[in-house]
């Protein structure tokens, strides 16, 4: 089944409480995906020359402080590194997994109940411009932290998915030849990798998602995050649910309206069901 949520702030007030809002939305979708939960937040950009790494450690006693200035969230930490330091540190500590990397993205995911996830990762205090979340009911691959959503296969890009893909094995082989790296056997990771490839080849987010309609076989509702924006796409059959809503202060999408009902001013929002095979994109001014 799975549940997905996305929130794009259009006001300072919503930006300041982005983590709290997304956490509340995620909690509402816990019944749709009790296996695992994950969240990606887009926050203040890293200084020039530095990249934000969201790292996962299976060791509860991980010495994060040794990596420098680390913002720790349960089993994850967000660390600012330049390319050389990142390469050295990750070689020194091969047990660390890079969950995401980019100028603005920060990502956490874990194979635990979504409500517990929200509490354990301290989402309430996190500000940001936009974010995505996912609650997982696994169908295609194992219930592990690596198999939880969102999936990030390129800088600042992430994807959450409700549905399943049928041609992911063949597509993964093709994308590997294009130089896209995969960490799991998961179908959703292939969709994220496909977008990374198309964006690298110069497609706009809109064009990359339109290409998904041609090349991906299966059913899906996707929510996609980039450094500047947020997009939604449903497959042409639209088996998987989605609802969107917009006010002057935010744009939101979720698998079900009850996840949107927790947002301020939801009762007055314009609410609609996104059309099948239509790309919806919201973008802010690009990061300089």
């Amino acid at each position, binding site marked *: 089944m799975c549940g997905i949520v996305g929130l794009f702030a259009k006001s300072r007030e919503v930006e300041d409480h982005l983590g709290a809002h997304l956490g509340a939305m995620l909690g509402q979708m816990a019944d749709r995906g009790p296996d695992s939960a994950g969240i990606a937040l887009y926050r203040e950009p890293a200084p020039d020359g530095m990249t934000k790494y969201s790292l996962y450690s299976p060791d509860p006693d991980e010495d994060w402080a040794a990596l420098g200035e680390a913002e720790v969230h349960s089993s994850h930490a967000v660390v600012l590194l330049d390319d050389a330091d990142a390469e050295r540190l990750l070689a020194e500590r091969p047990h660390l997994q890079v969950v995401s990397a980019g100028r603005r993205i920060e990502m956490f995911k874990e194979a635990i109940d979504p409500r517990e996830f929200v509490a354990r990762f301290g989402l309430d205090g996190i500000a940001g411009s936009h974010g995505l979340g996912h609650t997982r009911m696994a169908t295609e691959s194992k219930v592990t932290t690596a198999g939880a959503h969102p999936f990030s296969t390129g800088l600042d890009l992430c994807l959450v998915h409700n549905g399943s893909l049928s041609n992911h094995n063949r597509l993964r082989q093709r994308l590997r030849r294009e130089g896209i790296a995969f960490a799991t056997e998961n179908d959703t990771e292939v969709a994220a990798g496909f977008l990374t490839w198309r964006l690298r080849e110069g497609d706009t987010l809109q064009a990359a998602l339109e290409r998904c309609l041609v090349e991906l076989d299966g059913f899906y509702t996707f929510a996609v995050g980039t450094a500047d924006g947020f997009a939604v796409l449903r497959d042409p*059959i*639209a088996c998987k*649910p989605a*609802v969107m809503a917009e006010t002057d202060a935010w744009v939101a999408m979720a698998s*079900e*309206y*009850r*996840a*949107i*009902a*927790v947002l301020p001013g939801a*009762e007055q929002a314009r*609410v*609609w*069901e996104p*059309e*099948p095979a239509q790309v919806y994109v919201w973008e802010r001014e690009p990061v300089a």
Partner: protein
Amino acid sequence: MTVAEAVETVDLASTPLRDLNARLHAADVAPRWRVLNPAGAHAVAVGLDADVEVDVDGHVGYYCAGMNKRATVRVHGNAGVGLAENIMSGRVEVDGYAGQSCGATGRGGLIVVRGDASARCGISMKGVDIVVCGSVGHMSAFMGQKGRLVVLGDAGEALGDSLYEARLYVRGSVGSLGADCVEKEVRDEHVAEIRELLQAAGASGVDAGGFRRYGSARRLYTFDKDNAGSY
């Protein structure tokens, strides 16, 4: 205020949904109800079997008014997937949009959607009447066996695929017709039927003559190997 006019008010922000549905199922159920703060909850006012009126203030989730019998349920907001699924009789109205599979397998009664209905509206309808003031999505009335679907706006792709005897009336454009669904002549009796349904739906200002009729070509009722490509 007389006893007959009293309205039972239930606030779902403070009352569990099961309490509401249990009270609506009670043998001595009150005749009028108002439900506050549904907040997208699923299964609001399902399984009613009494001459009651229920007004829901806000948006509901899946399966609202499912299996409805005799009751009138009005949603003053939007409805999620499966509004009035398997409705038997009575009336279900929604002011906003209805999600996928509105009125699925419905056997009787009337559903009125003031906004749009999404994909698969009236899928496998078996006698229900559905009036949609906006448009319906793809695969609407799929395998419809009986009943009438009136669409004031447009219909999406594959309208009436594998249709049996449900009658479809669309005022706007049709994305495409599904297998074995064909346009048919609109005769006086059909205009009268549309007028009656519009009136019942409270949309009597609409010209009943402005609709086109679609129905089954009856070529797929029983398997014929010459039609294998159409299934």
